[in-house]
């Protein structure tokens, strides 16, 4: 019994760690897509952020300066996306793809040239990364049955970016549903001409949304390279940006359902890591690849309307042309 409890606890704990970057990236995508801009470049912005954070932290020795660099670089990429999609009214999917590919090449190119370690950045020392924080009384309360271990193992002992991701969900929900900015954001993705008629600039709204997207993607990237790992590795996002996009769609472009989708996807990942090579009773060995592809298969099924229905913001993907 105790063993099962402990295992569940550890599994949930690693789910949280794996979910943090997904949550941040999915919320990032929420701002872009709710404003009417398709963003398949979450992947690229995360990867760029991961590189900027690790490279800057390696040089300055400060994880916080690394985080700022990640946010800055990610906003820069978001602005290129904005310029292509909003200002020149280019194809949003093409622009996103272009950014993903450019960053996938640029990050290892720069890492190679600057640090000479075959596309990686140097391993970060203690101060240059975000380390686990022990919440107050974690050790003293550990002895308390059930609640003690939950507090000590599950709630305490994460790095600050995990807590930031957790805090971001209610914050984003509040911004999107309870503030003027949120109302305009939702409106501009559904009916931009109505927003324009009300005297609000569609262009400015969409650029603002993309800045928020950049900030959140930057944090997600910094999490990967300076909190979850201790250096930048080539292609270290490994599709997490696309997975976050899938989670966003799975959550029907809403913060809390998107969080649930991220937790589900992270849980499948955690299970997959745990199950590697072990044989289950009745089922036998489950191929890890089957579990790995589960989030993608689920998203396809959802989009096809076999499990619920996902309706995208109405104006998504269409550049706004003001009537003359």
């Amino acid at each position, binding site marked *: 019994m105790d063993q099962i409890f402990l295992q569940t606890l550890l599994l949930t704990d690693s789910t949280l760690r794996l979910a943090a970057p997904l949550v941040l990236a999915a919320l990032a995508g929420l701002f872009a897509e709710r404003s009417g801009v398709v963003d398949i470049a979450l992947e690229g912005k995360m990867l760029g952020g991961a590189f900027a954070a690790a490279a800057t932290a390696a040089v300055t020795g400060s994880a916080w300066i690394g985080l700022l660099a990640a946010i800055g670089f990610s906003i820069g990429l978001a602005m290129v996306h904005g310029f292509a999609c909003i200002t020149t009214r280019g194809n949003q999917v093409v622009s996103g793809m272009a950014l993903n590919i450019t960053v996938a090449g640029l990050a290892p190119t720069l890492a190679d040239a600057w640090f000479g370690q075959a596309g990686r950045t140097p391993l970060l020392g203690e101060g240059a990364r975000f380390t686990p924080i022990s919440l107050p009384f974690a050790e003293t309360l550990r002895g308390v049955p059930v609640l003690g271990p939950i507090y000590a193992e599950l709630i305490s002992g994460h790095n600050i970016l995990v807590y930031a991701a957790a805090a971001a969900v209610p914050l984003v929900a509040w911004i999107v549903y309870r503030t003027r900015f949120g109302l305009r954001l939702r409106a501009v993705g559904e009916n931009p001409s109505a927003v324009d008629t009300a005297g609000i600039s569609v262009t400015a709204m969409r650029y603002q949304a993309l800045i928020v997207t950049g900030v959140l993607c930057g944090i997600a990237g910094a999490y990967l390279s300076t909190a979850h790992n201790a250096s930048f590795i080539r292609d270290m996002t490994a599709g997490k940006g696309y997975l976050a996009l899938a989670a966003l769609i799975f959550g029907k472009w809403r913060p809390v359902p998107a969080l649930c989708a991220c937790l589900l996807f992270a849980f499948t990942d955690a299970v997959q890591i745990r199950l590697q090579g072990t044989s289950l009773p009745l089922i036998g060995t489950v*191929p890890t690849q089957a579990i790995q592809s589960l989030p993608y298969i689920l998203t396809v099924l959802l989009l096809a*309307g076999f499990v619920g229905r996902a309706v995208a913001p109405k104006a998504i993907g269409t550049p706004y042309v003001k009537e003359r």
Partner: protein
Amino acid sequence: MIARRGELPGWVDLGLLPLLNLLAAFVVSGLIVVLLGENPFRAVELLVWGAFGYGEAIGYTLFYATNFIFTGLAVAIAFHCGLFNIGGEGQAYLGGLGVGLVGLYLGFLPFALILPLAVLAAALFGGFWAFVPGWLQARRGSHVVITTIMFNFIAAALMTYLLVNVLIAPGQQGPESATFAENAWLPQLHDLLEAVGIEIPFSPLNLSFVFGLLCCLLLWVFVWQTRWGYALRVVGQNEAAAVYGGISPARQIMLAMTISGALAGFVGLNEIMGAQHRLILGFTGGYGFVGIAVALMGRNHPVGIVLAALLFGALYQGGSELSFDMPRISRDWVVVIQGLVILFAGALENLFRPYVVALFARRLPAEAVA
């Protein structure tokens, strides 16, 4: 895909603008080389030498170009129907699986039978992997972009599973299949030409290159010379008009996606049957994504696609040579160029257009009025 015909002379629209976009991408790529502390002009010199300087290099350039012809055509046919197929990577992967199964299990047949079977298998497997997203868009309303992205990941997981657990050669450490029997190898051009007495240096360049050019011709005939191609283009340009004209958009979408996937699947012929002669992990190496750049550069026309495929083939081959001579520039720099070409030729295609239009409006006032 904003095309405003008649605004500019054809040679500007099809020649000058793409060149301007390409130039912009190259300038930014050059600036990155400067940032890395190398001389960009020297880099270009090394790159061109590495791609065309000697026989072996040309062979490799054309070998890579073959992959890009297939994936470029695949993206283009989908574009003509108004669809964006990002799934070339997964479709090429599955196409390779089809070719691999023929090579592994039907290797006892004579080559004359294996060849059409392999072509068919590549088309069927790749086509199926694109048909499903096409069907989902046509009948269930899910967007083909997201579905094809998901299908890329599912394909990768499937292939890893098959290679690790099923197709792995006995006693093999890494996940790769057994080597095919030699009569299931696609003849490489240096062998073919040697048979008729012409000596060219060794390279993996094989018959797929010729097949790729044939596909270009067939695609041109299909898209512009048949009523099927016409129906497909009508759906791409105006779905309402298509319905009014009695064309079923759903059928055209499924058809375009299936052809697109089949074309992407032919990468398997070149890579698996022509070069590797066994199934390996990750042989698609991003070719499916480069196809987007190729189609955008080539303006979705077979002639443009061949030229763009040659350009990217040269970048691939020259880029790897360059990284030997300039250690500060890694192979990844070529990936940056690809990304920038997609950015400037695709997403920012309207960047220079207004200025060029203004320039021509001033220079040709009479024509503009008429």
